[in-house]
């Protein structure tokens, strides 16, 4: 099968349904399949928001509501954002470092093909009674509400976790070992730095989640009492193991998009990235600190006071590297020549809404305040600003930025801008009121609530409908542009990273000859002399003729 592919020049659509080892095919497979799960998770969210438009549980039963919230969280994290980030990483890393493929292509294909069955397994839990204990699955509740639904959930997460570890091994090896010789670690694109930090976290923390879930499975199926207090076990141990993964998971979900934003902003504002090393090292700092903050999810749980203080301090420290990134991005935009296309709009939207999630993040790091808002809608607002306002907007910025490279077609900018406007407005209408709901006393994960909270909930529900509608111009845009979009040139954005040195879409072996690095990834506005290489001269001529 793989031999057949290597003899043809262009990929056929069938190739995307095979065990193909080409990193570009795998990247698209990740992106498209994760979008599919995004729509399912989105439908669940819309059902929940419809339910929450009124205080009574009148649309779905409370049991179904809990199943929906469990699967919404699980799908959005494990089958949407994490694999979508892996999709970008797969597509871009080898191109950015000038390699012809990932370090371990077959492992890579295996890592992808674990995902679809895991997703199907997760969704099929509806047939045996879907899990109802939230994506956190805290025992003893998870041991009491539906054995097989819970076990399906565990198996699905174990599979996705395996996929994530295998992917991380590939990313780290490719980034560290397969760069073209001229590219030292300080001239590789910031997306690679971000993926390095994110993969390190995935490697170190995902296995601990696996340990927790294996023990939970034993409690569930065999009847041991690791986490079951009725038999002398301790549910808090589960929380520690779970959050040792699941807090870093937040950084696994946001770091790749930090990387994407660091690529998108300089290209479209025609300026070098401001503070390359600061942004690169702050990714590593976030990833290191990310490993020692997990118990801030447990400030009201079985965590002694002194430990709460320790985790408060480490959590607050994360604001420093994150702040460096935000300020550096602003400084990158400052004084540039902004080409306000859809990609840059999503990039700026990312900085704007991620900032809100970051500010509320510092607040909830403070123990006395977190005690009040823990497990309320304030937290829901916070992590949706980080994961929707951050990851999802960053993801769209990446899609619009690399769509010409991936497909050879330009996107329709008008539809793209409509998509951006609806997403940005919808996201703020949906999630901003939730801050106030949480502060006033609305707890999360409830199908029924007090009548006093209805007005703000209704606003949030209307906002979520705008969000749902915002995907329509996007889907139309993608389908239309794929067929009718303007043919994309090799380097439509006049970008300097290596993936733009090859054709759009890239040939199967990526580069016709090993690419030559003639400038840093972000040296806009600097006259850098090309080295002796025919391909570079041609490329430069091409760039000049575009002007």
């Amino acid at each position, binding site marked *: 099968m793989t031999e057949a592919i290597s003899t043809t020049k262009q990929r056929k659509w069938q190739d995307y349904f095979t065990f193909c080892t080409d990193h570009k095919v795998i990247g698209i497979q990740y992106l498209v399949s994760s979008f599919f799960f995004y729509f399912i998770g989105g439908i669940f969210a819309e059902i929940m928001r419809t339910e929450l438009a009124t205080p009574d549980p009148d649309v779905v039963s409370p049991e179904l509501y809990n199943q929906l919230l469990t699967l919404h969280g699980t799908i959005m994290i494990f089958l949407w954002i994490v694999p979508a980030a892996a999709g970008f990483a797969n597509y871009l890393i080898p191109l950015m470092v000038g390699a012809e493929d990932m370090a371990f292509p077959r492992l890579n294909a295996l890592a992808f093909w674990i995902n679809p069955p895991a997703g199907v397994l997760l969704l099929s839990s509806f047939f045996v009674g879907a899990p109802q204990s939230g994506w956190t699955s805290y025992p003893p509740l998870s041991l009491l509400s539906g054995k097989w639904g819970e076990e399906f959930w565990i198996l699905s997460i174990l599979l996705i976790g395996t996929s994530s570890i295998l992917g991380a091994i590939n990313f780290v090896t490719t980034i560290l070992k397969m760069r073209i010789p001229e590219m030292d670690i300080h001239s590789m694109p910031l997306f690679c730095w971000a993926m390095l930090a994110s993969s390190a976290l995935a490697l170190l923390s995902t296995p601990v989640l696996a340990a927790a879930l294996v023990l939970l499975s034993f409690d569930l199926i065999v009847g041991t009492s690791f986490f079951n207090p009725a038999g002398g076990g301790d549910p808090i141990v589960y929380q520690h193991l779970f959050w040792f993964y699941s807090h870093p998971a937040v950084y696994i979900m946001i770091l790749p998009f930090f990387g994407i934003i660091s690529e998108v902003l300089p290209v479209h504002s025609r300026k070098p990235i401001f503070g390359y090393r600061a942004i690169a090292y702050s990714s590593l700092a976030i990833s290191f600190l990310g490993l020692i903050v997990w118990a801030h999810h447990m400030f009201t749980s079985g965590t*002694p*006071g002194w430990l709460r203080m320790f985790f408060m301090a480490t959590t607050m420290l994360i604001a*420093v590297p994150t702040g460096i990134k935000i300020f550096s991005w602003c400084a990158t935009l400052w004084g540039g020549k902004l080409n306000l296309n859809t990609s840059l709009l999503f990039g700026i939207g990312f900085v704007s809404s991620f900032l809100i999630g970051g500010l509320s993040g510092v607040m909830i790091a403070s123990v006395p305040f977190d005690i009040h808002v823990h497990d309320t809608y304030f937290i829901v607002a916070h992590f949706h600003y980080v994961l929707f306002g951050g990851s999802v907007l960053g993801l769209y910025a990446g899609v619009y930025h690399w769509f010409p490279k991936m497909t050879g077609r330009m996107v329709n900018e008008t539809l793209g801008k409509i998509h951006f406007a609806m997403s940005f407005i919808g996201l703020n209408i949906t999630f901003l009121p939730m801050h106030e709901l949480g502060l006033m006393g609305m707890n999360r994960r409830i199908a029924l609530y007090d009548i006093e909270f209805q007005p703000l909930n209704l606003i949030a529900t209307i906002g979520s409908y705008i969000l749902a509608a915002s995907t329509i111009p996007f889907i139309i845009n993608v389908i239309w542009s794929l067929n009718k979009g303007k043919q994309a040139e090799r380097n439509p954005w006049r970008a300097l990273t290596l993936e733009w040195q090859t054709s759009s879409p890239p040939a199967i072996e990526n580069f016709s000859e090993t690419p030559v690095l003639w400038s840093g990834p972000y040296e*806009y506005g600097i006259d850098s002399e090309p080295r002796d290489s025919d391909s570079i001269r041609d490329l430069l001529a091409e760039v000049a003729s575009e002007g």
Partner: protein
Amino acid sequence: MNIPSNIITLIAGIILTMISLWYGQNHGLMPVAASEEATQVDALFNLMVTIACGLFLIVQGTLIFCVLKFRRKKGDTTDGPPIEGNIPLEIVWTAIPTIIVFVLSIYSFEIYNNMGGLDPMASMASHHSPAQHHHHEPMLAMTGEQSQLSLGIGDSPDENSNSPVYVDVNGIQYAWIFNYTDSGIVSGELRVPVKHPVHLNLKAGDVIHAFWLPEFRLKQDAIPGKDTTLVFTPTRIGEYPIICAELCGAYHGGMKSRLYVLSESDYEKWLQENIMAQSAQEANTVAISTAEMSDAEYLAPYAQEMGVNQEIITQLRPIQ
């Protein structure tokens, strides 16, 4: 940078500071504060809102300014200035957040200590030592196997001369049951006198619950097999919600109760009425041993209905 732009920056800075300071005090986002500690948490929150508001305005203002001012002119394909960084500026924006989080950490630590968060054991000790509480054997309530680890929010270090109220709180799906250890009253709602410290000993009978008092800015998980503590002193008479904040099953959203902070005389009146009612009932109740009682506690969760009826409450009451 010439002088006019410096002045503009200065004026913008002053306006920004004024707006942040004003908003930090007037955001009106929090519900009423019904205790001294809640007021302190609000002060911390106000400070954080002030800082966040300032940072929000700076960053969003920069973004909007960039979008308006630095737009590419039509036909201009040249690049912007090749500025790759500015070490002093980068040091400044690394140092400022560092100082901010340092200050916030110290301040939070201070307030947490004032709330009694660092020494919940102190309240446990004071609970167990007085002779009048001898009937209450705290260790019996535990599963017995696990070593005691003090968890939760303890007594405020400030001395309070008023006598404390001790209540055992048992969270089960989907209700809170309050057991006044001094008077033996069992109730589905919590009534406490104003300006007296309230010592809550939280237990859970089935799954993890969380005891949340929004107006007191207090929350602590009730964990099966582990007792946790919550101590607070209400300063404002009124009726407040008690909410379960940890997902505990399908009807988690319905697991609510009320906290009534009463004047001292009203509380005494309620106490007397209920002790009478309770002892009248006691005559009709078959005596049950402590061991059976704890069984009843564990059986309670399997009652699938919402709330609990009076019979269950009676059976859960410990024997004096």
